[in-house]
């Protein structure tokens, strides 16, 4: 791994950590930690959406800016652009099937081409599809980060090309799991609007508020979003299972045509 790739990978990991922290932030304000009464923790929770959007936006910008510092070449720019377009077109299929299609390519590309590529494909395809469909809003940084994570984490699956059957099965299960996790992550951006913490005097132990708010979140998720997510997750799994083998063959065939000149000339 060249110096540049290592660097962009480091920024990717650090920014993802900041993002995870930002996503967890509304659950961690429980009134006991910030040393105040219920009123101050309620105020902190009411301000948290703004803070979270700023932090998530900055970490996303840090990831995208490291590309500008030279982590990409023309081939990578071209293939990312075209695959992003393909993904945005696949999303145009109406209904949950369209959203399932948005997951399939980042999972497969992250698995075949690595974490950085998967992340960029995921987050940029949501950006492009928001630009086309006019879906820009405060939810966009969250969506971009979350779908970027889908692609990024897919690179952590060990290479199973010796066992094609297992490979397809593992990738489908992976896509199924991400279908639910993505839904759960995406609800968090408006969670502070729905949940108001109780007064901290009610709790005997520190951290009780966290358990309470996580429990409420679980209930909210099961009641409102689980059924939609069920459709989406199974759509993901089916589509990934169907497309995994031919698409992976395609990706590996083009890997040789695309990444052959991908070594750092300064190091040799």
């Amino acid at each position, binding site marked *: 791994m060249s110096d540049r790739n290592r660097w962009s990978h480091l920024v990717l990991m650090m920014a993802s950590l900041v993002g995870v922290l930002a996503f967890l932030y509304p659950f961690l304000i429980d009134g006991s930690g910030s040393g105040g009464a219920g009123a101050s923790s309620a105020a902190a929770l009411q301000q948290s959406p703004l803070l979270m959007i700023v932090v998530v936006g900055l970490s996303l910008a840090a990831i*995208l800016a490291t590309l500008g510092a030279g982590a990409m070449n023309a081939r990578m720019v071209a293939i990312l652009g075209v695959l992003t*377009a393909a993904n945005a077109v696949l999303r145009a299929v109406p209904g949950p099937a369209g959203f399932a299609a948005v997951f399939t390519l980042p999972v497969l590309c992250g698995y075949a081409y690595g974490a950085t590529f998967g992340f960029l494909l995921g987050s940029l395809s949501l950006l492009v599809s928001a630009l086309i469909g006019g879906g820009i809003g405060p939810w966009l940084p969250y969506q971009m980060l979350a779908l970027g994570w889908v692609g990024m984490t897919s690179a952590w699956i060990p290479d199973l090309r010796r066992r094609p059957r297992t490979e397809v099965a593992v990738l489908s299960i992976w896509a199924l799991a991400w279908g639910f996790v993505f839904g759960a992550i995406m609800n968090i951006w408006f969670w502070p609007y729905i949940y108001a913490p109780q007064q901290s005097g009610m709790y005997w132990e520190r951290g009780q508020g966290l358990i309470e708010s996580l429990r409420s979140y679980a209930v909210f998720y099961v009641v409102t979003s689980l059924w939609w997510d069920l459709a989406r997750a199974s759509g993901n799994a089916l589509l990934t299972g169907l497309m995994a083998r*031919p698409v992976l063959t395609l990706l590996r065939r083009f890997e040789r045509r695309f990444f052959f000149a991908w070594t750092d000339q300064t190091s040799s």
Partner: protein
Amino acid sequence: MRNPLVWLLWAASAAVLALSMRNPLYLTLIVLATWLVYLGVAPDTPMAGGWRALLRLGLIIWLITIPFGALMNHTGEIVLLSLPENWPLIGGPVTLEAVLGGAASGYALWTLLFIFAAFNLATDASQLMRMAPAFLYQAGVVATIALTFVPQMLQSAREIREAQRIRGHHFRNWRDSLPLAMPLLTTAFEHAVQLAESMESRGLSGELTDLGPGRTRLLRGSLALGLLLLMAGLVLRITWIQAAGDGILLAGVLLMAGVFWQLGRHSRRTRYGLQIWGPGDGAVALGSVVALAAGVLAARSNPALVSYAPHVDGVLIPPFSPTLGLAVALLAVPGVVSLVQDRPPSVKGEDGRPVSSDTLP
């Protein structure tokens, strides 16, 4: 058409206000202002129907959040009804305060949705892409390539579909989409190869900055440090003193902004066709900035004025300050300006047909 920078400023101001306020009186002012803006932009665009549907969906979500908040929260004095104490989570009294708090929160969420409906209808993708800051240049190139390729890929999807139909393939359910998706992806890859080769032959490589190795290392280190500061600030804010966390967060934000600015300064690009700063743009920008500044100052000096939490402090009637209300109402400036200034007579020619700017001899 207004300058997209002005729209961005307006949307950012309105969104920051809507995100930091829960007081329903100010939120109503924001909604009214946005409604004026919406009236000014909506008739021109075909996207309006989709957003109307989304806004209706937002109303339904609002109706869901009210009972949810009311059932989960049991603080407050005025008890409307009581559920058995032994029901998990929802057991206990249902109070008027909790219902009002839930309604105000859902209202804030819907306001946010409405603001961005107006923003999305007012701007278009290519205009926004041109405004991508210089340090995001690479990502901007990728997104622009994608935006350019989308119509091309829709076209080739149609062609592939037709070709498969001629071969006797029926597209009935999702299983049949594979013979469409695979040729589409293969074509996309072939396009990408061609594009990469033509980009390289025109001298476009990955390297767009002219930074020396020393400076590059410095900027990388600063970016990593900025992310670390953000992390530390968040952790401090949760576990210890909020003010200390805020200070560190601010330091991290400033450091990262400095790095982005430096990166942007070193990427050279040429612009064609500058955006015109129209006559009403100054007024809109000024109105947005004043409204934002007033809202932020008020939230800093007197948080009780903008927040609304009856289930915590028992105040049922939200406070209202006319000065702040007037400042928030300045968000309506783009709507007023477009209703006064931009309406059709200027768009139609003398014979009643629209005049287009590209009818040069």
